[in-house]
């Protein structure tokens, strides 16, 4: 860790890996029309660490779900590299998620009937060049707890297993939706450290959704959401290490 010293932002020109243009999402909840996203443009660059910040209901999760291939936009296009994934049918979206995207969620979404190792090994079955589960778990510092079931682990440990599972397929992009939302700050920091390490070690694009403004300091770039639109984008000239932030 870098101690108290801030990390200098690496401002090399990065190539965009995602291009989302004019994304709108309209839900019908009964009689009421809810506009979750309203014409959003977003680029995500290869290897960058982005924090998507905003109050709940501001549209950040909806956007990541659309970019991650879990949901569809009402209008607009999403391009992943040269592929227009917004035109994909369901089966191609599944294949896309399988090959390129890792997810980490607030509630971990581990399989309770599988051990940590098995949860990680799960994705090995569907990816071309998976990391051995042991290696992935070692990266998140859980090699000792490999044969435990989720119910036998703390929240932070479970989240780290979820991260190990997400990275085991060596994804190009890791979408983390409130990864620290259910954790206390000490455990949360541990999880963020793991995410930073992965961003650096694997060169994966990491997008972290949070409503916790303190977390912004660890990102290369911070995108702020409000009412279904992007309110602003800022580039951190100096990143903090997770150990140096507090909430």
């Amino acid at each position: 860790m870098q101690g108290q010293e801030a990390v200098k932002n690496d401002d090399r020109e990065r190539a965009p890996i995602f291009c989302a243009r004019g994304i709108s999402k309209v839900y019908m909840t009964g009689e009421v029309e809810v506009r979750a996203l309203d014409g959003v443009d977003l680029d995500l660059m290869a290897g960058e660490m982005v924090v998507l910040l905003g109050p709940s209901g501001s549209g950040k999760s909806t956007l990541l779900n659309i970019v991650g291939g879990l949901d569809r936009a009402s209008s607009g296009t999403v391009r992943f590299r040269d592929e227009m994934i917004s035109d994909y049918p369901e089966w191609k979206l599944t294949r896309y998620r399988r090959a390129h995207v890792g997810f980490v969620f607030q509630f971990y979404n581990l399989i309770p009937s599988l051990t940590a190792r098995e949860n990680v090994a799960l994705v090995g079955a569907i990816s071309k060049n998976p990391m051995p589960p042991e290696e992935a778990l070692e990266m998140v510092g859980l090699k000792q707890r490999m044969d435990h079931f989720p119910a036998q682990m703390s929240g932070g440990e479970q989240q780290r297993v979820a991260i190990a599972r997400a990275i085991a397929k060596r994804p190009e992009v890791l979408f983390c939706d409130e990864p620290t939302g259910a954790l206390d700050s000490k455990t949360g920091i541990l999880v963020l450290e793991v995410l930073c390490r992965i961003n650096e070690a694997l060169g994966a694009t990491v997008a972290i959704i949070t409503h916790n403004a303190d977390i912004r300091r660890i990102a290369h770039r911070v995108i702020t959401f409000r009412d279904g639109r992007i309110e602003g984008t800022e580039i951190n000239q100096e990143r903090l290490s997770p150990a140096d932030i507090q909430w």
Partner: protein
Amino acid sequence: MVAILDRKLLRDVRRLWAQLLAVALVLACGVAVLIMAVGVYRSLIETRDTFYDRYGFADVFASVTRAPDRLADEIRTIDGVLRADFRVVKPAILDITGMEAPAAATVISTPDSGEPLLNRAYIRAGRLPDPNRVGEVAVSENFAKAHGFEPGDHFEALMDGKKRRLTITAIVLSPEYVYAIGPGDMVPDNARYGILYMPESVLDGIFDMDGAFNNVTLKLGRNANEDAVIERLDRLLSPYGGVGAYGRDRQISNAFVDSELTQLKAMAGVLPPIFLGVAAFLVNMVLSRMIALEREQIGLLKALGFSSPAIAVHYIKLTLVIVIIGTAIGFALGSWWGVAMTRLYVRFYTFPFLVFDWSPDVYLLAGGVAAAAALIGAARVIYSAASLPAAVAMRPPEPVRYRQLSLGFRLPRLLSELTVMALRNISRFPLRATMTVIGIAMPVALLTVGWSTSNSMDAMIRAIFFDTQRQDATVSFTDALAPEALVSLARLPGVMRAEGFRAEPVILRNGYREKHLSISSASDLDDLSRVVDADAVQLSIPPEGLMVSERVAETLGLSTGDLAQVELVTRNHRLVSVPVTSVVQSFLGLAVYMDGRALDHMIGDGDRVSGANIAVDETRLATFYGAVKDTPRIAGVALNRLSLENFRKTMRENIDIMSTIYIALAAVITFGVVYNSARILLSERGRELASLRVLGFSRAEVSQVLLVEIAALIVLAQPIGWYLGYVFAKLVISGFSSDLFTIPFVVDLDSYARASLVVVIAGLLSALVVRRRIDRFDLVEVLKTRE
């Protein structure tokens, strides 16, 4: 407050309709089978009792060669006898226009003065024959129906060697011939066997029975001792060739009706409990899951002030909704089956009237039993829900603890994580998995029983018609004749082989145990009627001693080497001790064989034949049949070839109907169990499965978790189903066995396979219906919420 809960109830029912219906259908089958079996049982027993009572069905029956009328008074005065009837009962051969084969008949005398005291005929149409007119006859209804006869129609009958033209005056039914089975037949053949009633004076003339009778029937007083009456009667009749009196239990028609009643009773006792048991388990499973999902709601309701009983009543009402739907369907189905089954019975059992018993108490019973079963299934779950303290209910339940099945070392990865997920879930809920497996095993067992019955019937047909009784026809003579009679038989057109036999009525005894039966002659030269061992290999006939069938050996406790007592009932009840030389296989009645010469020697009246087994050239059957109709001295003829055809046809029809019903019942149980299991699995694991979808697993891969678990349970259920099926089938088959015939117990591999195939297909289809729900997962929604 209650109204609000009722509104929730209605919405729950609408939401869960498919699952509730699946449970209700299983319940409905139980209710339907109960209504059908009990309803038909009652219809049959009430109709029988009324018919027997109103038309004076006798209690004791006896045949004799020829007894003088003066014996009648002595018989009437036997202690315990209320009424006695003395008749002439003779076999006849019928020649009916339009039917190639001869028909057999039993001709019974009726008093010239009118109706007999006992076994009176119910007149469906016409009037009883007039003793003053020549050749008038009343005929049994099913026989008339088979030929489209009406009063005024004619046919010809060979009686005592002479052919006579008879005119039908009445169509009648008799309590004595509710189930009328002809000589050599396995099931009634209405076209080839009929009961004829003719005035006493006419029959006396035809059969030279003036001043004599050959058949006695007795009605006993309420407190009469039947055994004592039979003993006394036997003593009186024995000088005149009495072959042993018997009670209603050995009266053939009554014995068949009784065995049918026993089967219905068994059906009512076995099938409904299976369905109701499975339904109770399903109610338990569905309600458990529902309450698990509604845990927090229950806590909230309680916090709001709803009492525990109010909560309990709410779930009891839901259970009763299942009961009401199931019972309603069951009532409709049961009534329909009952009516259909009653119609089927009318084809074999002739009663003046037979209608399905609609009495409300049967329905009340069925509904009550269904409600009880469902509530028993629900009781524990509802109790635990109602007694849950509000604060505990509002907390999420404890997480499920999984265990790794450790062998002390790590196995190489044989199973994918998805398969491990499925299998670990089974081991996590062993009780539920066990119950599910038993639930699926039941339809396998049910189908195995159904098809094994068919296998056993086939085996019986093979054993009787192909291994032991291979003749095309069996002819019986009016008296025992010298063997020269065979020569004229052999000359009949189409006859390729005629093997004479002798059958002697005896009482066979071993200590205090005894049986009335016939000893048949056998010879090493016989090729048509053969004595075989358990492997159907023809046995050589020892020059001395008895070869007894397994049934006889069993009932009398005889085994090879034992000395049996033979009482020659028509030879002044002379007693002879004869050793048992072997126990042989036979499925036809109480068979006992003896070398022909040894039998002649034991009887002591020289070389005699009482009938012959005949092989007929297939292409000349018509001319052979024609000749039989005109041959004197032939008293009766059994056409084994036609009996076999008729038996097969009837069996096939019955088995087709039964298979259809069994397959439907099995499919309903399978669907009920598998569909509900799959729905519950999906409900419990929806979040996990959706998570897998998010990770990039395809629908097919995610379905695998669900399908592997269901498939594993279905596979586990098969051997259990086979075993249960084997045990049940053995019970059913042994229940069929009587002194009339024994059915070999056989289950072909094919039957197990077919039973499994039906259940596996029904199970996978049910699971696939649920699989479609995986396609409709809302991935985003799943991830937003904590379990």
